[in-house]
């Protein structure tokens, strides 16, 4: 028998020039369903005016990021069981630090512009993935193979970052992590892009980005590694090795 819970889904609403408010939807759920399934059922059966972003439903596209009970989650892979209990309320809100388009949907324009500025890689050789799971000794000839990058460009790290909240021009965790992945050695132009006021030095090491990243990117560690790259590149220039 499938387990059934009764929950109240408390959904952030905001149309046009309205102020943010919340609508409650009482619903029966299977706790093993994902938060996105509950949101989608509100639209399908209870309120056709609800707007939210979603596409792949398996953590490859990065469209369905929301704040769930105040914490950034990729809702398509967040089981309801993991974030609430039977009879309780589950609050869903749009990501912070993005303009709200409507309800739970946000505008990703500025964020994707920053990912483009650092030439974030969409696909990369599988041998360059930092960890592979399961850890198998892949055959030598697999070096020719490509893999979609870990970063889903979901924006959870931007929403969670306390620095992004105060300075909209800050590149932010995912773009800086992408710059580290590309590497200044591979793209020397990155030095000027990240070694500036709104770049790698603005991070305050809150590590919130890594805490919410749903896709193993570990942006905080990569930002620290990018600082090492920047210092290395600048020292190289200083001593004429660039």
């Amino acid at each position, binding site marked *: 028998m499938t387990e059934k819970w009764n929950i109240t889904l408390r959904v952030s609403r905001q149309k*046009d020039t309205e102020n943010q408010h919340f609508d409650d939807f009482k619903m029966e759920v299977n706790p093993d369903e994902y938060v996105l399934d509950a949101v989608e059922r509100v639209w399908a059966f209870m309120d056709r005016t609800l707007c939210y972003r979603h596409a792949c439903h*398996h*953590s490859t596209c990065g469209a369905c990021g929301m704040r769930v009970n105040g914490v950034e989650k990729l809702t398509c892979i967040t089981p309801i069981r993991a974030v609430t209990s039977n009879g309780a309320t589950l609050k869903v809100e749009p990501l912070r630090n993005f303009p709200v388009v409507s309800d739970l949907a946000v505008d990703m324009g500025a964020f994707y*512009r920053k990912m483009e500025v650092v030439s974030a890689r969409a696909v990369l050789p599988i041998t360059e993935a930092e960890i592979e799971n399961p850890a198998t000794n892949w055959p030598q000839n697999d070096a020719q193979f490509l893999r*979609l990058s870990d970063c889903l460009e979901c924006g959870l790290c931007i929403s969670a970052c306390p620095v992004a909240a105060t300075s909209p021009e800050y590149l932010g965790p995912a773009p800086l992590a992408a710059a580290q992945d590309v590497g200044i050695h591979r793209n020397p132009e990155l030095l000027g892009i990240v070694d500036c006021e709104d770049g790698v030095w603005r991070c305050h090491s809150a590590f919130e980005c890594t805490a919410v990243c749903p896709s193993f990117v570990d942006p905080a560690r990569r930002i620290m590694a990018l600082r090492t790259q920047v210092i290395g590149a600048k020292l190289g220039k200083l001593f004429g090795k660039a």
Partner: protein
Amino acid sequence: MTKPHAIIIGAGFTGVATAHDLALRGFDVTVVERGDICNGTSGRTHGLLHSGGRYAVKDKESAIECIDENTILRKIVPQVIEPNGGLFIAIEEGDLAYAEQFIESCEECHIQLDELTPQQALKLEPNINPKVLSAFIIPDGTFDPLRLALAFAGTAKHNGAKFRTYTEVQGLLTDGKGTVTGIKVLDRASNKSQELHADVVVNATGAWAGQITGMAGLDAPVKPTPGIMVAYDQRFVQRAINRLNVPGDGDIVLPQRRMVVVGTTSFDAENPDYIPVTDEQIKIMLDRGSELIPGIRNAKPRGIYMATRPLVGGGSGRSIARTFKCYDHKETHGIDGLVTITGGKATTLRAMAEKTADVVCAKLGVTTACVTKETPLLSYRQYYTIPN
């Protein structure tokens, strides 16, 4: 001379690819989508860049479409593709019996095919079932569904197309003599209705095509046919793994990022808006998927979802041909100004768009040729970075 204006309903694969094609042929293009881009079937597609191997034996037309489009997409949109090939593997004697017609059919459909011994196959993919009896390597691939659509949409935007998401069609506008002249829409973000006029309206709503044709009093040209997908949290393989046999449930396992995705099933549904996942279907994916890759039994699910194919033609479920159909409703029902494109599959999105744009151009006397085969797509990020 003013440009002809086309409204496209639906920002799934066919809608965005048709927007790209028509923008290149000099149209003013407006795409309306009730949700965000790719929120329906397209976003939830399995992500297999078909070589055509799956269809070669039973449906050569589909198979040839697939290998041709597979080759084109690798060239024009490599940014969204894991181009690592695929294996068809035989696990049981019954699978081996299928091998002969599989080889013949792939050759007939010019799908490149190399036979491997079980030892060679296990060397290439150490995590497939060690009981593998035979294997064939073919040019399958994997793509990111949303980013595939974004690349088409972003390039279309660069060429002037406008995208209006969260905009739901409420009705068709007509001239009183049966010709469709536009649509009435509700902007769901502002809760305001508006009329949009155009020289032609393209219904690219896939499994929902019947809801739009219904507004013109026409029957649904399509049968919604959902199937389940289960993603698991380990990347066991680098290539798409297919069961060497007649297409069935749970017989494809795809790598994608750090996951594998097992799919799928096939059944009929009435309302494609919400198809619930059932425990029975999840179990089928686990049982069948682990026949191909035993390690799946020890992996954790990371996303379980239903996607609703828009299948055209007679029959039901897997016996329906996967090819697409484009209807000029003037030809079929005497209703001018409305074109419906439906059916098909993700791999053939560009070809579907070419056919649709050909029909639209013929209606409006536009003679510009299709150039999408040779036009590399811009970065998928352009969709978000170019203001509407």
